[in-house]
């Protein structure tokens, strides 16, 4: 708290940090959850094996997204990338029948 001459402590900076935290938590979990569901339906393995594999890697995926969100140059760029990734995964999941009602499986 003793650092001075730093624009980092201003409200804009704080808001950007808060934005990254929200994006990391919600975006990271959304991407991990969508990828887990998509891989569970599409991996060319026995069904239970596809689910187990996808679930196992999900935590690494979320960590990667969180690290990216905090490493990205700007919050806007990070938000765009995460939203794009989630949209692609969501589209894939829709095509794979992930959003259809029970019975498809």
């Amino acid at each position, binding site marked *: *708290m*003793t650092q001075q001459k730093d624009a980092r402590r201003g409200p804009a900076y704080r808001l950007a*940090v808060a934005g*990254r935290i929200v994006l990391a938590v919600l975006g990271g979990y959304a991407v*991990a*959850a*969508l990828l*887990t*569901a*998509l*891989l*569970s*339906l599409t991996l060319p*393995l*026995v*069904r*239970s*094996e*596809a*689910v*187990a*594999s*996808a*679930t*196992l890697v*999900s*935590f*690494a995926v*979320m*960590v990667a997204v*969180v*690290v990216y969100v*905090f*490493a990205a140059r700007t919050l806007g760029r990070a938000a765009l990338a995460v939203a794009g990734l989630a949209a692609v995964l969501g589209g894939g*999941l829709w095509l794979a029948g*992930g959003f259809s*009602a*029970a*019975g*498809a*499986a």
Partner: protein
Amino acid sequence: MRQGFRQSMAWLHAWSGLVVGWVLFSVFVTGTASYYRAEISQWMRPELVAGATDPASSADLAAAYLQKAMPDAVGWYVELPKPEKPAVGVMWWKSLDGPFHQALLDSTSGAPVGARDTRGGDFLYRFHFELGMPPLWGRWIVGTCALVMLVALVSGIVTHRRIFADFFTFRRRRSQRGWLDAHNVFGVLALPFHLMITYTGLVTLAPMYMPWGVAAAYKGGEMRFYVDSGLMPDLRGPAGKPGTLAPLSSMIAQAIAERGEAPEGVSVYNPADAAASVVAIFEEPHGLAHEHPQIAFDGTTGAVLGRNGATRAAAKTSTVMLGLHEGHFAGAALRALFFLCGIMGAATVATGLVLWAVARAPKGAKADGFGVRLVRVLNLGTIAGLPAGIAAYFLANRLLPLDLAARADWEVGVFFGAWALVAVLGAVRPAGTVWREGLALVGALFLAVPFVGAIATGLHPLAGELRFLGFDAAMIVLGVLFVLAARKAGRPRPPQAQRADAAIAGREALRA
């Protein structure tokens, strides 16, 4: 957050580590203690003496007890007695959402045991992933903190990219650089363990944290996933008609005949239904994987209904991760190594928390800001407070009157009370001496445990009682370590070292 990847990772490491540090420290400490959960439970129930047991007949006694306690239960679980744990544990519930009732029965009479009322090592074990909160809340908080720990590990590895050079650099002075070096040594030395234990911990509760794969592929039939994976036998639902449960002993005898050993426990589903099922669950066979062989029986006829299948690669990977986390496969030496690694994990978190505060302490005569003060108080309140709580929990086990109503709850109350007391004292005592006082108090509490235990129960080596030598020795080692830590924390540091630190380590530790 900063210019450049390493700088932003240093920022992420410092802040992500800080916000979850206090929970992580508690999770590491209680998890590490849980490697000796059975031993702690034995010490906390000194009345139970190891002896020969008969699993089959004690299962019938347990069923008779459960029949009276809750005949219309949805499920019972009977933990069969073993020579080193001669009592029969029973659990029963009317709904999978709880509440789960439990009792400990004498294996020859079937009546509740005369041992003192305590939650034993199970309290520390559950605290490890539920923090003494309602299970769902606790598990989500611990899971969130574990994920942030993983983020802190990854960003920490990036930050300390000179990882091997750092490992061989230890400037043993009580200074900021000393704290940084200690943090690096504890963190790097046991880094494979830290990564393993954090990831496998998340995998342990993966069905709760990340249910979307199962939900997408099994839409509504989620239990099927566990059957397909080879983790449980295919079980039938209730028939809706009343039925009579056959004696459990006959099914246990069949199970023993099939596998050559007694099962560890027996689950009974819908015990009063015509389609009751009984599942004999065996201990994991030798190996890393946490996979319990299971045989399912028709509860009314005793005929075998099925067994769990073999696990394939991915499911096997999950069970091996669970096995690694719990360390059941480990013999005495390996378990001790896991214990040491767990302590190093706690030490990594603790030194990191202290380093955060030390690196941000105002230079010169300026007063601390509110943030740094808060972190200091929480640091002491957790790093000294939790161990004080554990020692007080053990002392309460020996000192509370045996006929006290809700005695087990009182023990837990003492645990939280002592923790809170140390935290409050830490907040009001002067900053210069508070660490010395706090750590010395913890040391004294641990050192008191064997002596208080011996006096209160009359069970000690001089009276020929050797069962608790290991536990007592562990308490003395912990006590001595805390006293040594208190002595170190009490030593004043030379002023020139302070100035040198500020100059050298400022940039190194305070990249944020």
